């Protein structure tokens, strides 16, 4: 479908999502190639990187913040921070985990700030998720159960089960000892199970 003489410039993905052909073209380029092209000023490469990683970044931010508007801000700012640091990015390393580390750390920061503000305000909104609208009730239960966890615990669960990072990788990303990651995972999972068993779907 794509000859080897094809121009290295990437086709611009239409806003409504890539066609299958464009998706194949896009996937044919590794993150490293996209990062290199983006560093050289290619807007198309930047857009491809963005489209490839946005949903996962947004989901991770949402699962930690449990606030749709904040998740959007956090994911957007994290992506901008990553792009601004592309010059310093080691292209031998994968882009995704690097971005997710930024996202999760910023999401934790946001959650802590909100907690601090709530304390100052003398109590306000609890850490509850936005209504996911058409999401199934079991997902709603999951979000409510997640809201019972400390943000640090939510973060390790997201990194472990959404980003598939090992405890060692999570420890490096969050700059905490590996034992801390393991204990947060264990406690988080126990509490999640407890909450989900306690709160069945209507």
């Amino acid at each position, binding site marked *: 479908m794509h000859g080897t003489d094809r121009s290295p410039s990437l086709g611009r993905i239409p806003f409504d999502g890539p066609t299958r052909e464009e998706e194949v073209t896009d996937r044919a380029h590794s993150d490293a190639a996209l990062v290199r092209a983006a560093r050289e000023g290619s807007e198309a490469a930047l857009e491809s990187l963005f489209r490839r990683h946005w949903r996962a970044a947004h989901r991770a931010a949402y699962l930690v913040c449990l606030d749709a508007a904040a998740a959007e801000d956090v994911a*957007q700012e994290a992506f901008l921070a990553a792009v601004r640091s592309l010059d310093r990015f080691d292209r031998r390393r994968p882009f995704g985990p690097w971005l997710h580390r930024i996202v999760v750390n910023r999401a934790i920061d946001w959650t802590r700030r909100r907690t601090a503000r709530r304390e100052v305000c003398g109590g306000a909104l609890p850490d*509850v998720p936005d209504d996911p609208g058409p999401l199934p009730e079991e997902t709603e239960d999951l979000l409510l159960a997640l809201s019972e966890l400390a943000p640090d615990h939510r973060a390790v669960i997201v990194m472990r089960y959404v980003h598939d990072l090992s405890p060692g990788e999570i420890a490096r990303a969050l700059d905490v000892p590996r034992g801390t990651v393991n204990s947060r995972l264990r406690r988080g999972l126990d509490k999640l199970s407890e909450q989900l068993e306690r709160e069945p779907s209507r």
Partner: protein
Amino acid sequence: MTENDLRQRLLAVDPDISREAERRAWQAVRRVCHPGPARRRRVRRRAAVPALACVVLLTGGVLAAAGRPRGSLTRWLRAAIGEAAPPRARPTLGGLPGGGRLLVNAAGGPWIVGAAGRRTYLGAYTAAAWSPHALYLIAWRGTDLAALAPRGAVQWTVAADGPVSVARWSPDGYRIAYLAGHALWVIAGDGTGDHRLRAVVAPVAPAWQPRTGLRHRIAFVDARGAVELADADTGARLWRIRVSGWPRQLIWSPGGTRLVVVSRNRLSLYDADGRLLAAGPVARGEHVTGAAFAHVGLRLAVAFTREGQGSLGVLAATRAGLSHPPQVVFSIRQPLSSVSWSPGDRWLLTASPPADEWIFAPATPPAKLLAVGRISAQFRARPTGPDRFPGLGGWQVGAGRPGGG
């Protein structure tokens, strides 16, 4: 639950329902990284501090009224920003900070305000309400009910059985409920199938339950002040609940899972089956003057007034009930009335009729308030027309551009 189950359930969570977040984020990234050769400059966050706006720090959640000069927010803002900032009040409504289109029900008829501030007068109707996707409006005057295009072109009209006082379009667009005299009527979105649902109801706007599939379910207040949910096509009563205090407003959450009943001194939260989840009087001497659910989620903005001081707060209507006290967005020494969320739910708009002002505030504090004065004069159909303070008819997405917050 196995670890694999958990992984699958986590991956099934998709906060990006409309893809608007992705669109906005990409636009922001592109603006920063590729601003274009003609405008290559360091892009800063827009300092949304128009002439009249001012940063209102809310570390305590609520502004202490003491120590502030009495009078309108405009004057207080002037005092707060001092002489260094231009003391010009914003005399006209410019663009809408949250984008989209705002329906305004003024004394001489409804208007639509565009994102850039352009105003379109729809004609001499009593009031109007949006269709679910803001493609049409339903307007009324006397016994006439009319479906309008957003520029005012009449699509159809029907003569009602009595004077029409309010109308509401169903979330799927296929039905319109309206009050004619004391009766509740339902008509199809194309102006056919007009039928009376109840002979006598209270003069409170009915509320369609969202996300009911092919069924059309509507909540309304009956003649005795009870809230009833009925099938709008068959007339069957699904449930009826007695509430404390006379209901003034019925509000469904966007997902159709929660119903908030607002009375003067009380907020009550019900589930879709009419079960009471939470209820409570607001603080002594405090009155609820308006409430609205965000377009997405379970955040409920509530305008309170107490002894002439207005506050705008946001509550979470969760399964556990209503979070209380509310997260206060701002509080000022003038009463507030209705409240609307912007498309995208980033801004709140509330009104202060005595000050003839609208106040825009970001939904998350600390709030940078933007007040606009002379509202009545800006929505007067004729120079000598009546001067009733305009009501907020709903803040919807822009034409052909969903989202916009």
